[in-house]
């Protein structure tokens, strides 16, 4: 023994297994766990390490698992004895022992059927009360028929005992249910903070002490304490503390923004490293976050187009399967022993269960919606994603969509005057009006640090400009009415410009020209060229004048544009465009293009549209996030492909397995195994497609505690 120990200790070791701490010999392997490379002595240890170091706790999933475990415990003994029977271990002539084993099997199977069969029985009863058949009906009829027939055989002293079939069918179907529940839990988890927004609670300061209150009871003016890492429960202003907030769910911007006393903060964003005191500016149930939460919940409860189709198919699918099973039973009963016929009929029932069908659409859709919502993109239901995947062309509104919607001074020309003087008069005149042009000119003067002159007797001439005692600014026509000559150099510049022109004159002469234009944000061009690369046709539909429209279209790279359109004209132009290119998605700002958004196959509203309920848009993007359009298209196509793949798989698989079962070539136990396998494939497929970039969200305790039931 000592020699053996010496030999052992001479063997080389590298380092210790991360889980069981045995020195890892040369056969050790490194695996990536939670982002670290750790040595393990075997794969089992790697898994065991994950068990003891992960963060998961799902009480309801655990309850299902306990059922499965207890069921599997009984089922394994049943299989054990059945195998021994099949392999003739007990001998053919030992009738007493065989009978005893039959009774043992019956005794083991009875509690199992009660434990695992009850949920299916409830489901089937529920469907029956509604006058429907469901997948549960098939499972119940299949397993209870096998159990009942076997029990009858035991009592009569027969030999055809199929307890193993009855129990394995139940175990495997319960396993399928568990996987489904897991997938749903996972989806719910990624959306949990969003869905729980209204039920979340906040720490409110009342007379210097903290109390927990539900968000819905918070009124404007309340002081709320937000801890580091918490999700903000209210919209408001910081009054104490400083931190960085992640507002991605609202704006899609991944950068963290600095917050200090005086900064505005928004519900739904995630507080970073510092604690904050926030004064609520709106009621807790009126924040944009709560509106998003409601919209997501509505979106999830809406069936997708495909989902509705599947429901309609399932409605007649189950009765058809029942008839087919009966026909199979009758056919084989006429040609062979009743036991074989019964097995064939059971195999038909079990293998045709449309579980995978019911899973395919909702899972993929819910994950897609969740993924978009985490970027601040709201999609109204799974059907929208399916339509978006069919879109072949994009039409854009101009103002507020391809442009920021606010005019900027892009060029300043002066004649015999300084820029400071020019802006002094211009800003002074602008102070008398709230017209967008006036606001832009005031802003430009502020930007350049020029102070406005205070002028007497300012009046606005609608459609022309502003007039004061000794100064005016506005169109060329306004200058004509003053009989102020416009210098040639300005006229020449004006003729070549496609911007909006404002002349400024004082003390009897025109002294300067301001050119204003609205700028396309840098990402609009990138988004449009990405869409072109993907093969989409694009056009621009604008209500603005021809020159600015042409300039913006050119700037972002859209080749065709229509200007001077009324809302009705936009709809007509969109229809024409759709005739040429197929399904069109319209991208607008949702403010005054409701009709055209509604007329498009998919209406996409961009901007911080404050009231979701009023919009005609199918999709709402946060402001300045046109660059997400290609990503959104990719998401829609991925979700659609996942659904089709799942459906094709489920149908094809079922068709092949069904034909095998009808021809009596399939044992029911194998059929149940095939069925469970089919569900596994569908779930894995959906989760893989849906988890490509789901962020792990920081979940506040209250949100994590709120359990969400998603539609099935």
């Amino acid at each position, binding site marked *: 023994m000592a020699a053996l120990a010496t030999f052992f200790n001479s063997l080389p070791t590298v380092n210790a297994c991360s889980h069981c701490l045995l020195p890892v010999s040369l*056969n050790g*392997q490194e695996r990536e766990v939670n982002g670290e490379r750790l040595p393990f002595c075997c794969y089992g240890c790697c*898994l065991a390490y994950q068990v003891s170091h992960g963060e998961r706790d799902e009480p309801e999933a655990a309850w299902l698992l306990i059922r499965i475990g207890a069921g599997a415990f009984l089922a394994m003994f049943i299989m054990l004895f059945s*195998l*021994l029977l099949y392999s003739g271990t007990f001998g053919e002539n030992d009738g007493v022992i065989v009978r005893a084993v039959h009774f043992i099997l019956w005794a083991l199977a009875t509690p199992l059927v009660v434990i695992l069969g009850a949920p299916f029985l409830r489901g089937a009863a529920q469907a029956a009360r509604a006058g429907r058949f469901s997948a549960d009906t098939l499972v119940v009829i299949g397993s209870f028929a096998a159990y009942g027939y076997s029990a009858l055989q035991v009592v009569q002293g027969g030999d055809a005992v199929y307890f193993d079939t009855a129990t394995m069918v139940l175990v495997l179907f319960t396993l399928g249910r568990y996987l489904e529940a897991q997938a749903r839990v996972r989806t719910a988890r990624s959306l949990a903070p969003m869905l729980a927004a209204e039920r979340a609670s906040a720490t409110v300061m009342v007379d210097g002490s903290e109390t927990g209150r539900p968000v819905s009871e918070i009124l404007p003016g309340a002081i709320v304490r937000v801890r580091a890492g918490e999700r903000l429960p209210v919209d408001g202003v910081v009054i104490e503390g400083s931190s960085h907030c992640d507002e991605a769910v609202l704006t899609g911007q991944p950068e963290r923004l600095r917050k200090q006393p005086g900064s505005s903060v928004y519900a739904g964003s995630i507080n970073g490293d510092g604690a904050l005191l926030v004064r609520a500016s709106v009621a807790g149930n009126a924040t944009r976050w709560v509106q998003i939460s409601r919209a997501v919940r509505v979106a999830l409860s809406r069936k997708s187009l495909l989902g509705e189709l599947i429901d309609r198919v399932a409605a007649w699918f189950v009765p058809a399967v029942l008839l087919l099973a009966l026909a199979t039973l009758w056919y084989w009963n006429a040609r062979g022993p009743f036991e074989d016929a019964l097995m064939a009929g059971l195999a038909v029932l079990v293998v045709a269960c449309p579980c995978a069908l019911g899973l395919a659409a909702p899972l993929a859709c819910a994950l897609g919606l969740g993924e978009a919502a985490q970027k601040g993109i709201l999609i109204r239901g799974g059907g929208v994603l399916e339509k978006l995947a069919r879109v072949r062309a994009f039409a854009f509104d101009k103002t507020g969509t391809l442009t920021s919607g606010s005019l900027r001074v892009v060029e300043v020309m002066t004649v015999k005057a300084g820029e400071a003087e020019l802006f002094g008069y211009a800003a002074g005149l602008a102070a008398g009006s709230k017209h967008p042009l006036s606001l832009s000119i005031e802003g430009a003067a502020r930007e350049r640090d020029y102070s406005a002159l205070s002028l007497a007797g300012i009046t606005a001439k609608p459609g022309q400009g502003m007039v004061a005692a000794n100064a005016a600014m506005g169109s060329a026509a306004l200058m004509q009415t003053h009989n102020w000559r416009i210098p040639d150099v300005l006229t020449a510049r004006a003729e070549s410009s496609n911007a909006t022109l404002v002349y400024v004159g004082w003390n009897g002469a025109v002294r300067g020209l301001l050119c204003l234009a609205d700028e396309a944000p840098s990402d609009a061009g990138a988004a449009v060229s990405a869409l072109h690369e993907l093969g989409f046709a694009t056009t621009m539909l604008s209500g603005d004048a021809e020159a600015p429209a042409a300039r913006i279209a050119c700037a972002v790279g859209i080749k065709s544009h229509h200007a001077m359109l009324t809302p009705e004209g936009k709809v007509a132009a969109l229809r024409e465009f759709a005739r040429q290119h197929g399904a069109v998605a319209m991208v607008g700002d949702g403010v005054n293009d409701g009709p055209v958004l509604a007329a498009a196959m998919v209406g996409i509203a961009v901007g911080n549209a404050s009231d979701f309920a009023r919009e005609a848009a199918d999709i709402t993007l946060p402001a300045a996030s046109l660059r997400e359009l290609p990503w959104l298209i990719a998401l829609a196509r991925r979700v659609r492909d996942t659904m089709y793949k799942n459906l094709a798989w489920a149908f094809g698989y079922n068709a092949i397995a069904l034909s095998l079962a009808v021809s009596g070539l399939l044992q029911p136990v194998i059929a149940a195994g095939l069925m469970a396998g089919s569900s596994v494939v569908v779930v894995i497929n959906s989760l893989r497609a849906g988890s490509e970039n789901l962020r792990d969200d920081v979940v506040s305790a209250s949100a994590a505690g709120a359990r969400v039931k998603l539609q099935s």
Partner: protein
Amino acid sequence: MTSYVLIFLAGIAGSMHCVGMCGGFVCAMKPDPRGTAATARRHLIYNSGRVTTYVFLGAVVGFAGASLVAHDGGDTTASAAQRLLALVSGALMVFIGLQFLGAFKTRVLSGAGGRWLANALRDLLNSPSNLAPLAFGVLNGFLPCPLVYAFAAQAAASGGPDSGAAIMLAFGLGTFPAMLAMGGAGVWLRSARSRAPQLAFPTHDPKTGARAGAHIASLPRADWRQNGVRLAGVFIVLLGIITLARGLLPFSAHLH
């Protein structure tokens, strides 16, 4: 019968590996609030669940092996297919046994769905239900483990579900004592948890040593366990050679 005793001994030696691997969760299982007897019962239930899975696996692979080679009941007139199965299984056992001895660098067989199993087990850890340890044990038995593979290989070549089940039962019972003791140690450790657990031995990697702290203090010393695992490796190689011999030698009845 000789080989069953060998397997039982191999189980005892190999349970040093089980203790390291599964001991972590055994300690993590919630002690029963109704006292030590109830906690002991929970651990007994857990181990029964685990061994049930082993026995079931043994019966299934035994049955599969027997149907594969159309076993005709006679030991002495073993068919060519049966010999081949014995050779394959024996080779696999020798290979795994040598792995335990650290003979060569290789990737360990990885089971599909392992991650899912790990997640499932974690869901069960904190459940107060009486059936939870049973479900936990049943699933734990399915965790991929080279020891289980080695004896499953032997069960496959054993010629029937009965002998397959018996082989796995012998192995499972061999792992019983150490694992039950582990449960006891876990209970004791929990009561002593207020004192910071001292690492009982130096680890080569301070980082992993610090990370793996939860159940370490209750483990037997690593070098003992290491030698236990190596002893198990020796047993497995021995059993593998016997299995190989059944495939090679004309008359192997005396080895059965």
